[in-house]
């Protein structure tokens, strides 16, 4: 009861003090504002990037291994030169590997090329044409909006048919049914047998939505007689990804006849690599953000401490009066801590008022939201800064001698 009364009195005093010194209070909170804006924007950006990244990386498939000539992440120029020198990964090798692998749910070799696509009057250049087998639908968990995927007979024997991404379908057919119509890919006729469900954009890479999928046989006939294959292996749930990766590596080494002791002349890629790299980048951004935040909160905190010392000095007489009529040390301490915390909280609120529209602007690029977690964190951090920075001045006030304080003018 006693504490509650002192607390509300503290709030009252803080409010009057801040109102009486509006400009001073506002200027003091600048450091706090910068700090809190940084922390909210960083938090929001990282959360947003994370969501965007996870969304786009999910199409890669967490349980799919990609056997191919090059690594997805090339860390140095030397590595790049080494990878350029690697032998091609041929379709025959891919077939041999598929014969030996017994731990896959599904496997599909594939390669792609850019081509012009035409339907009637409408056409598009530089569309990615992807040659693969019927199993690709299972590897990539594709869903169809219309028609069906390529059949085993079509991909084994070779027939000029294709399945198109949702974006290609909208561009060429403008909402009309596509199945049964003939497209021209680099001038050769292909019949549309299916349209894929929309998958959404991928960060950097090209989404399946804007691709045309054709049988591997036809790809080698019409686009590239010696394709550079990427073999996708969807690993069975019975086996761990690491074990599968190790076994696959041995098989590929044998098929490509890599002498024992020599390094691999191929790469096995997986989603994890990208996720790890992203985590590193996000971690770096977060670290820098935290540093800026810490620095500006520190500077802001010093400002608060300074202004609170001034406030205590200005109100020495008031402290004396309050003590004379019965305020204890605790009472005075609480009063000034509340004032410091209130100034900082005000800064925190202003910072959120700045961050909010910025977050809305960010939403055009990444799925950013000012989450309740970030908001409450920002407010907690600013109040805490106030309490820490205000402690020394408040302590000095609390310990003042009442007679000396009363005598001051």
């Amino acid at each position, binding site marked *: 009861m006693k504490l509650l009364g002192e607390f509300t009195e503290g709030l009252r005093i803080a409010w009057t003090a801040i109102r009486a010194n509006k400009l001073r209070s506002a200027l003091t909170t600048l450091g706090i504002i910068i700090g809190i804006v940084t922390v909210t924007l960083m938090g929001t950006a990282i959360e947003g990037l994370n969501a965007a990244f996870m969304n786009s990386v999910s199409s890669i498939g967490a349980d799919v291994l990609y056997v191919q000539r090059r690594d997805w992440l090339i860390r140095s120029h030397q590595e790049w030169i080494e990878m350029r020198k690697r032998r091609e990964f041929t379709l025959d090798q891919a077939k041999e590997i598929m014969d030996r692998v017994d731990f896959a749910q599904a496997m599909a070799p594939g390669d792609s090329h850019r081509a012009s696509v035409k339907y009637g009057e409408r056409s598009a250049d530089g569309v990615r044409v992807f040659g693969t087998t019927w199993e690709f639908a299972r590897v990539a968990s594709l869903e169809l909006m219309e028609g069906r995927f390529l059949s085993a007979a079509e991909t084994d024997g070779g027939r000029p048919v294709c399945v198109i991404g949702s974006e290609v379908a909208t561009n060429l057919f403008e909402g009309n049914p596509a199945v049964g119509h003939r497209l021209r890919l680099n001038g050769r006729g292909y019949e549309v047998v299916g349209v894929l469900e929309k998958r959404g954009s991928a960060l950097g890479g090209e989404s399946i939505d804007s691709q045309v999928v054709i049988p591997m046989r036809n790809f080698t006939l019409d686009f590239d007689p010696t394709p550079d294959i990427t073999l996708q292996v969807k690993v069975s749930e019975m086996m761990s990804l690491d074990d599968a990766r190790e076994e696959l590596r041995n098989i590929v080494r044998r098929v490509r006849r890599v002498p024992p002791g020599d390094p691999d002349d191929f790469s096995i890629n997986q989603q994890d690599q990208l996720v790890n790299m992203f985590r590193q980048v996000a971690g770096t951004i977060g670290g820098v953000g935290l540093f800026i935040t810490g620095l500006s909160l520190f500077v802001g905190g010093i400002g608060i401490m300074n202004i609170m010392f001034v406030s205590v000095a200005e109100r020495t007489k008031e402290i004396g009066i309050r*003590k004379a009529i019965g305020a204890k040390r605790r009472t005075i301490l609480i009063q000034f801590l509340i004032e410091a915390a209130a100034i900082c909280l005000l800064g925190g609120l202003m910072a959120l008022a700045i961050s909010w529209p910025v977050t809305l602007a960010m939403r055009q690029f990444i799925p950013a939201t000012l989450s309740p977690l970030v908001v409450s964190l920002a407010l907690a951090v600013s109040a805490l800064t106030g309490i820490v920075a205000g402690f020394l001045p408040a302590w000095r006030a609390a310990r003042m001698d009442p007679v000396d304080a*009363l005598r001051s003018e």
Partner: protein
Amino acid sequence: MALIRLQNISRRYQMGGETIHALREISLEIERGEYVAIMGPSGSGKSTLMNLIGCLDTPTTGRYELNGTDVSGMDDNRLAEVRNREIGFVFQTFNLLPRSSALHNVELPLIYAGLRAEERRQVALQAIRDVGLEDRMHHRPNELSGGQRQRVAVARALVNKPSILLADEPTGNLDSRTGEEIMALFAQLSNRGNTIILVTHEEEVALNARRILRIRDGLIASDDPVAPRP
């Protein structure tokens, strides 16, 4: 039992290498209900004595019993409680909080005493009425005259029903007519049984009390009753 009992109280200040004896070995008893005026030349130690009696300060040596308890060795926080409960101060410069209304100023000791808000309001209102300022209670100190401010200060001093009312030159900043008004208020309070100790320079003011204590160089020079006025 005396309300106030000072035994061999001294108060010294260290100023550089020099020791200032503001009070030297004072012994004094004041009973409940007394009305005492303290007089003496400037620098004789009147305010120092008031601060000690009011528990704002502690003696360098000696023992001070207030209401039967020894307060000379108490720490800051205990003294704050004693001040809140037992003492009401009236100062020469009023010492009201400038940004608070008269009513809030009067309420303040009750906040520190831990009363609930509604109860506080009631008690504070009554105290304001007692000094005849209910129509000014929402005004701030700078919107009140000197006499009105001192009335607010008296209301604040009395709101907790303290044992002692301490007034250090309460009329020092007032013109003679308003001063007389305040002294009339004090006489009323004394008649109702309040214990009042008052510091003043003016013989005229001191004659309102029933006992005059004269101090010189930190010592009690004389201690006489005042003859009742004709």
